[in-house]
């Protein structure tokens, strides 16, 4: 999406960072929604898709950081691994969406999202194994915490993110990716 000006990208990224703080609070009241659906991931993925990889990376770093400072969630002790995970989501999602052009919006979106969601989990797993809890982190623990416990979140993100992108395009808040096809 090359038509967005850099000012607009900056402000949209700021809005996504803001939503990283607000969405988890909004879902707090709905039972289990926070753990099931990881609301903070969605603005990060969107910032990457819409504004590009550098802005996605920034959102992935600044979003959880601000949220931890303002709302106390996540607690600072879990922040480092979450920062790595979300930064990878924003970065990879943005890169993939710039590289993959199948002429079909939804195909581009799903490919970018799946690759990003995998990459983020792998990177966070490696970071945990090497840095944050060196030596104590096993493959079994990684599979449990990143796939078994979070697969509903993966399903929900794959359903929600393309729906949001399509809605934003319809509302003319972001440019169409393939204007001729629309």
């Amino acid at each position, binding site marked *: 999406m090359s038509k967005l000006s850099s*000012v607009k990208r900056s402000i949209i990224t700021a*809005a996504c960072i803001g939503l990283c703080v*607000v969405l988890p609070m909004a879902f707090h009241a709905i039972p289990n929604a926070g753990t099931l659906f990881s609301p903070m991931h969605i603005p990060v993925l969107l910032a990457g898709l819409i504004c590009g990889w550098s802005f996605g990376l*920034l959102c992935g770093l600044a979003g959880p950081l601000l949220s931890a*400072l303002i709302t106390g969630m996540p607690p600072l002790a879990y922040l480092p691994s979450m920062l790595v995970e979300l930064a990878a989501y924003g970065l990879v999602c943005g890169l993939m969406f710039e590289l993959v052009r199948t002429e079909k919006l939804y195909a581009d979106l799903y490919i970018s999202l799946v690759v990003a969601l995998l990459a983020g989990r792998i990177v966070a797993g490696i970071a945990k194994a090497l840095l944050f809890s060196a030596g104590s982190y096993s493959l079994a623990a990684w599979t449990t915490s990143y796939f078994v416990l979070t697969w509903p979140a993966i399903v929900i993100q794959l359903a929600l993110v393309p729906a*949001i992108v399509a809605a934003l395009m319809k*509302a003319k808040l972001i440019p169409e990716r393939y204007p001729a096809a629309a």
Partner: protein
Amino acid sequence: MRSLPTGQYIPGHSFLHRLDARAKILCLFILMAAVIGAASLWGYALVLVAIALLVLLSRLPLRSAVAPVRGVYWFLLVIFLMNTLFFGGEDVLASWGIFQIAPAGIKQGFRVVGNVVLILILGNLLTMTTLPTQVTTALASLIKPLKFIGVPTEDVALIISIALHFIPTFMEETELIKMAQIARGARFESRKLSERAASFIPLVVPVFISAFRRADALALAMEARGYRNAKNRTKREKAPLVAGDYCALMVCALICLVQIFLRP
């Protein structure tokens, strides 16, 4: 309009409250390194004493200083068990399938849980004695050296300050959208995953659209006023660190240094 949530900040005038936020963040990182680097009983005793002194210095009630630990004790139990059961090692005391309990595993479990608890308390001390806005301005000035590797740090600082400015508005709008959808019959409690995913759409899509609409309006206003990038903006001069700040940094560095000598 609602004001920005103040996080866990508890107003006060203690030494920790008065320290410069930049110094506090740096101290936090140094002490975290000291905690992670602790490898002997003496090492842990050292960081434990240091953190206990900090809690005293903060003049926060003990209850709130250790509050985050109480909130996550289930999680701590899980990490402890995972480390104990999967770590293995020699002198296995008991084993069952892929699980085994060994003294090394138990030690590892205590270690990891200890690290998490201490870092939780440290982080908590920072956020309880510092306003979120102070932390973010401090972070913005601490990332300045990144300019040399090509990061547009002023733009990053601007984006974060705009994000902070958006938060109260977004909170209010999200609350209203949630109410409006509940009023017209939205339900979020479905058990089936596919229905559950669908039930979030009426909430999340309007929240993003209204946030992007605000972003759009602000970007247009900024472009109309000729804003291009951060280069020409006037810079605010920051107050320099004072003696107390340097003292705190030195003490933390000393703790970290001693920690290295205490490693077996």
